[in-house]
């Protein structure tokens, strides 16, 4: 579903991605772990073409999205992304946040877009928040709305960038449960996360990103119990010390 091949990306003289190769099959859930600044967000933003790549190619659903002259708007509709900071539109109610994409980018009528959005909001326990503005919602609710907003575009793939990092600890579970439900429903996902317990539960595969390369990857059971690379071991030890595994 996603094929990333030799992707490189620099900001000025800082080379953030130094040749990333990564395939995500349909229905697969791949978790990206790695220290802050290792390039997880940048990789996800490249897959959504929010950042142009310097070299390499990315293929999503058979189409090379890094080719010249592709219709980026059409491609982005098939790839949902949820950001760490929610990024809801503060001047719009929940229902308008969720229906903006379907109405403007997919050309759905207001009635149809709202019917689909209401269905999704119900499914994720947000039906009563329909007409609220984002600043009235808790962080967990805002992030669930952000997930629903991305889902409303009926994407083939979801990219999640540390979607629980900005949340108070007691609100993390409700968002993780939403993602578990998506995984159970067969959604293909590429997830950057600091929640190792969650990654172990949900991932088909875990990739350890270090200084712009994928240093090690494999099934979560192996990565978390018997990491091969010293750097991976170091990273996991620090996480364990911090009490997050």
């Amino acid at each position, binding site marked *: 579903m996603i094929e990333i091949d030799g992707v490189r990306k620099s900001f000025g003289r800082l080379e953030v991605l130094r040749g990333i190769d990564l395939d995500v099959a349909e229905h697969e859930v791949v978790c990206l772990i790695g220290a802050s600044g290792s390039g997880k967000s940048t990789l996800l933003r490249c897959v959504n073409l929010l950042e142009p790549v310097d070299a390499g190619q990315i293929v999503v659903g058979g189409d090379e999205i890094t080719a010249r002259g592709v219709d980026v708007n059409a491609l982005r509709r098939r790839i949902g992304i949820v950001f760490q900071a929610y*990024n809801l539109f503060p*001047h719009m109610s929940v229902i308008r946040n969720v229906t903006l994409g379907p109405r*403007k980018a997919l050309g759905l009528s207001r009635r149809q877009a709202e019917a689909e959005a209401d269905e999704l909001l119900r499914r994720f326990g947000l039906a009563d928040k329909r*007409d609220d*503005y984002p600043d009235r919602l808790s962080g967990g609710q805002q992030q669930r709305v952000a997930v629903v907003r991305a889902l409303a575009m009926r994407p083939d793939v979801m990219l999640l960038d540390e979607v629980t990092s900005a949340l108070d600890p007691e609100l993390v579970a409700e968002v993780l449960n939403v993602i578990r439900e998506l995984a159970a429903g067969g959604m293909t996902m590429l997830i950057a996360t600091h929640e190792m317990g969650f990654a172990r539960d949900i991932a088909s595969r875990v990739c350890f990103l270090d200084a712009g390369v994928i240093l090690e990857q494999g099934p979560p059971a192996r990565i978390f119990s018997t990491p091969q690379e010293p750097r991976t071991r170091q990273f996991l030890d620090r996480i364990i010390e911090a009490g997050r595994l």
Partner: protein
Amino acid sequence: MVYAVTHSPGWPEVEAAFFDWGAYRDSFPAISRAFLLNVKIFLIAEAFILVFALLLAVLRSLPGPVFFPIRALSIAYADFFRGVPTILVIALLGFGAPALAIDGIPTSTTFWGIVSLVLIYTAYVSEVYRAGIESVHPSQEAAARSLGLTRSQALGWVVLPQAVRRVIPPLLNDFIGLQKDTALVGILGSVEAFKQSQIEVAADFNFTHYLVAATLFVAITIPLARFTDWLVARDRRRRQAGALA
């Protein structure tokens, strides 16, 4: 302070020349009628300014080297018309343009007065809009683009609505400035409130007539200020109360 003024040796003469209640009442109807022209100039000019200034601000925010000439032109425009004194633009256009006597070019001084005000205030108001556009965090545009919206859809539905809401108070300041500057059109001979009071003063050398014009300008500023307060408060209420969309 008030005491020092009202008990100064020259006060009786000043009182007679500037605060003559009889003169005030006599000229009030004529100056009020003339003031309608100020209101008309204001309303017409403002409608064009709000649209042109937004266009100019958007042109100035176009990214990339392709749009450099457009950006440079709009910057030059804003710099020029913020630098030239309003009264000079009005005099140059108001006396100059009709004097050309070109067929099809309006000769109405009021028309050229309005054109001058639009040219100048478009420069000011575009700066206000631009500050608003820049105050909207780039992650908002990223969120909109990630839903597959085009650049202009993201601008129109996500960036500009937030930008405009934030600049309503400074926008009102420029409204008030414009309302006052409509008096400058009087130098072209258009009989607006200031010109009318000049006529009255010339007839009886009583300066109270200027006071009539001053009261009228203040009287229209107050509702304008209260209207903005109301807009700002309504927006805040709406976003905090939810469920009222």
